[in-house]
């Protein structure tokens, strides 16, 4: 089993953020931001030194819990400091962007890193549908078409035109082409059935975030079935699980620290949308008109995703000392076939020094055990 550090690049004073999204820019002090990036870079360097296999960056907007609205910029910076690890863009909100631009950026990054890039695409939280004013009803269609277009743009040897539903280009000729052939690995980050099917039918990897082991096992089981139908089986590197971790020297130390964090309000701040805005996003995702006068729960089609997001907020999947955490990781490996675990060590109340200690402890005590399964 491989380990990935989720390079959250959290603003170090994120515990001062208001609860609601978006976090006003006035909460950000550039001095703190610069130090937060530097702290994050140190965490990446330590992880590489200790033998982590991947470092991942994500795309999040308007908060600062993750200072990475553009994961490619972050990945390029990390890649200059970390020369061995795979760099995973886990993931990009492709539906908001120009897929050709994304393909060009991946082409550049794969060359700059000597072929270490892993791509990943996802829809994201309700708040992720808002920054670029995309109609949430079209997010799924834009994501699927965008992924098809990125793959074509990264592999087609001659210029071509694209007449899509959402994208329309009369000349596409991406340069530079990536180092990895036919292209860097792609992972679809999702728990939605249609996106899992897409991943299986296109022979792409699957990433699942924060769900408990039994839920992950069910999703992976379906994914494997659909991969079988498509005539292939995923490698361990194509089943990725992202989770939060709180690692202590002992179980008791981890539990004590967890209690302290809970007392301070565990869970990212600056994430809450107004309730009716959340309902409006999910209604739109279901293709339904939203009446602001209603106070109904999200429509049935989105309830799973909505409830999952609400239920997982602030929860830590892996908590304990090295033995316990190694056992928890083995469960995901054995029951779900997870081959790569992507771990976020930055919690709402933790500081850089604590995170460095945890990464160090993980590298010394947990990572060697992961190699055995």
């Amino acid at each position: 089993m491989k380990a990935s550090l989720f390079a959250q690049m959290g603003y170090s004073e994120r515990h001062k953020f208001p609860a609601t999204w978006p976090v006003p820019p006035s909460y950000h002090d550039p001095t703190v931001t610069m130090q937060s990036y530097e702290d994050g870079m140190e965490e990446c360097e330590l992880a590489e030194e200790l033998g982590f296999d991947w470092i991942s960056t994500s795309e999040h907007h308007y908060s600062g819990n993750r200072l990475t609205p553009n994961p490619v910029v972050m990945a390029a910076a990390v890649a200059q400091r970390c020369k061995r690890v795979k760099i995973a863009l886990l993931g990009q909100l492709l539906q908001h962007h120009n897929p050709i631009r994304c393909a060009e950026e991946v082409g550049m990054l794969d060359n700059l890193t000597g072929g270490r890039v892993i791509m990943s695409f996802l829809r994201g939280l309700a708040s992720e549908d808002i920054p670029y004013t995309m109609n949430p009803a079209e997010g799924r269609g834009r994501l699927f078409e965008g992924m098809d277009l990125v793959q074509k743009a990264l592999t087609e040897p001659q210029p071509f035109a694209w007449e899509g539903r959402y994208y329309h280009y009369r000349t596409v000729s991406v340069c530079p082409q990536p180092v990895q052939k036919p292209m860097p690995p792609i992972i679809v980050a999702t728990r939605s059935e249609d996106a899992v099917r897409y991943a299986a039918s296109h022979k792409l990897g699957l990433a699942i975030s924060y769900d408990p082991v039994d839920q992950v096992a069910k999703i992976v089981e379906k994914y494997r079935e659909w991969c079988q139908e498509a005539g292939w089986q995923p490698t361990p590197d194509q089943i990725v699980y992202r989770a939060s971790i709180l690692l202590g020297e002992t179980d008791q130390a981890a539990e004590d620290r967890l209690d302290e964090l809970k007392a301070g309000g565990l869970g990212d701040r600056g994430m809450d949308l107004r309730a009716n805005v959340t309902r409006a996003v999910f209604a739109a995702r279901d293709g339904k008109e939203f009446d602001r006068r209603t106070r109904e729960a999200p429509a049935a089609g989105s309830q799973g995703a909505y409830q999952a997001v609400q239920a997982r907020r602030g929860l830590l999947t892996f908590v304990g000392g090295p033995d316990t955490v190694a056992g928890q990781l083995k469960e995901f490996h054995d029951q779900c076939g997870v081959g790569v675990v992507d771990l976020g060590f930055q919690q709402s109340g933790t500081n850089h020094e604590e995170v460095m200690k945890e990464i160090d402890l993980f590298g010394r005590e947990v990572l060697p055990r992961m190699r055995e399964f």
Partner: protein
Amino acid sequence: MAATQRAPAQFKEGHLEVDGFQIRYWEAGDGDSIIMLGAMPWGLTHLHHTLATAGRVIAFEIPGLGQSPVNDRSTSLKELADTMARATAMVEPSGHTLIGESFGANVALWQAIQSQNNVEALILISPSAILPSGRFMAATPGEMPSLLFAHPENRHKLPQLDPVVITKEQQLAQRLKAETHDSEAANRLGEIQCPTLVVFGLEDKIAAKESASVYREKIPNCNVSIVYDAGHAIIADRPEALASVVSDFVERRETFIVGRQSGLVNP
């Protein structure tokens, strides 16, 4: 908004007797009530007509503005807002969206603070109540038209302003201290509980557009919209853009941040 597919509404003029004033108003459309406070210097605009396709619009001429007689009776913006609240209650006794533009926005702000129960949503267009530098730009009646627009040529899209009216309105604004920072209103912004939209033109030379962040920070449920390439008179510089954002907020309130324009190229 779907309602824009309807035929243009016909506005009818009416009058109300309130606090000794005879207040003129124009009304059109049906549905949820939208109360508009302004000087009406240019009469009914694209914004009025757009909103009247989606709701019942009642546009008041504030006493002392536009063609109304000199208002030497109101002693403060708060008192004038009370007068307008009473006028509003006569035509719409229950909940409504309240829109104010320029001086009318300052009156609407106080109406929202003082009559919160009935104001379900508040829209302030080019308000000048909050002036971080203390005063808004002083101008003579002759200078005023050129200061209103991002593009002076846009002044010709609307009826020419009467210098006599401008002088009358400026005197009222000075007497009610509407040209200076309203610290009491600033201190009470946090009392406004309804969804609020504050709109500024990026090139506004009269109101303090930098005050947008004050409204956003102090009003609990506030959105700010900046209209590109527009001055104080957004209705002249970018009428379609103004009508789009205002009508969308009237319909959807704070959920208007969720996009719904299709990006479909071909099915």
